[in-house]
């Protein structure tokens, strides 16, 4: 845990210094909402259409972060430095997944107001706690799968392609559960209470992917 905190602190410090990921992720999200707004030519979106727009936009932005998650380790020798240290290698998984989770949460601080502005779904205010709950669980899947995929992709020349190619199919169950879960929250007759079924699916998928990533992550760091 202490090692993971050390790596996490270093990652957050690097992002704070360079601002390589977060501004780009946030800008892509806002631009995507603008494109949807004018492309669909509607003043307000609701139900599954709104849920789909939000999910897809967050996915696009998350992929930017996922692709860059290990770049500093690869380009500046962070992998070697870490592998030379007498530490548990799963600390890297924990640290990187937590960093990505934090980036996604910060992204959503910008993306949700932009979504409310450009998509103007009905009753978003009353559904906000449930919406945040879904996004918190969805971020878990993004963080774990993103870290796992990024660790694979960074060792390849075509890392920008490998990330989406492996990541998107793995993220599909979480994306479907998120979209179907938040759709009813963004309707005119929304009750504001989340669907237990989709929350459970997301939570179980988070757990499954976390265990899978933990089991194989050591091997991903090898040469």
């Amino acid at each position, binding site marked *: 845990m*202490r*090692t993971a905190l*050390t790596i996490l602190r*270093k990652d957050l*410090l*690097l992002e704070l*210094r*360079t601002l390589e990921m977060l501004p780009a992720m946030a800008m892509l999200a806002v631009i995507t909402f603008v494109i949807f707004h004018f492309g669909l030519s509607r003043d307000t979106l609701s139900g599954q259409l709104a849920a789909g727009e939000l999910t897809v936009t967050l996915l696009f932005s998350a992929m930017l972060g996922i692709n860059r998650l290990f770049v*500093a380790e690869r380009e*500046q*020798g*962070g992998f*070697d*430095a*870490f*592998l*030379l*240290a*007498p*530490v548990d290698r799963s600390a890297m998984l924990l640290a990187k997944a937590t960093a990505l989770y934090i980036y996604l949460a910060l992204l959503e601080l910008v993306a949700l107001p932009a979504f409310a502005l450009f998509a103007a779904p009905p009753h978003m205010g009353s559904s906000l706690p449930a919406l945040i709950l879904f996004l918190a669980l969805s971020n878990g899947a993004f963080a774990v799968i993103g870290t796992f995929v990024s660790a694979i992709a960074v060792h390849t020349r075509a890392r920008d392609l490998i990330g989406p190619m492996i990541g998107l199919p793995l993220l599909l169950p979480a994306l479907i559960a998120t979209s179907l879960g938040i759709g009813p929250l963004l309707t005119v007759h929304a009750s504001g209470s989340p669907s237990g079924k989709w929350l459970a699916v997301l939570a179980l998928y988070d757990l499954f992917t976390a265990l899978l990533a933990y089991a194989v992550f050591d091997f991903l760091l*090898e*040469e």
Partner: protein
Amino acid sequence: MSTATDPAGATPAAIAIDRLSRYFGERTVLREVSFELPAGQTLAVLGRNGVGKSTLLRILATLLRPHSGTVTILGEQLPQRGWAVRGRIGLLGHEPLLYRDLSGRENLIYHARLHRVPGQRVEQLLEAVGMSSRADDPVRSLSRGMVQRLTVARAVLHSPQVLLLDEPKSNLDPAAGELVEPLIGRGCGATRVLTSHDPQAALVEADLVLALSGGRAAYFGPASGIDAAQLRELYA
């Protein structure tokens, strides 16, 4: 766990390699290389560019797996027991392993935490390599020589028993070379494996020499046993 001894059987070998081979795809970089290095001694690995010197160092550092043969460091066989020797090995390679957007001090503190080394040691080493006054500057703003001094500090931060030095004095001017000498030179007390672009300088530093040619060990023996003609042939 296995232990190895030098040919005379007197000093335990800090590093023992037996018929080590390593390939990259179809290309054989190291072919059945064997040697033993007693604890506290220095081995100079000589040979032309691309002959496998850096690959050998990366295998010893546990960063690359050997494809055949056995590698034993400090009594532990690699790669199976690599975890047992990490933290007892210091690597000074071609890459500084420092984050460009962090300062020298921040980088060393990061490495110190990974190796469970007290922060006090960071300040000692910054002083030792003459970088205290520039310790808070981002690494990307430093000259190559300054980065190399920080890299030396990073490599010896955890007081490793085995030092793997890949052209350790590249980018260092004579004054800086003298500055880092107590940390990575003969008197540092560690078992050392070093490569150098200057074979004569490496021979002065070494007790033993491993000369690589075509991935094979062309010579392994005392540094005094290799003559100028052999060196010329090696680099021809």
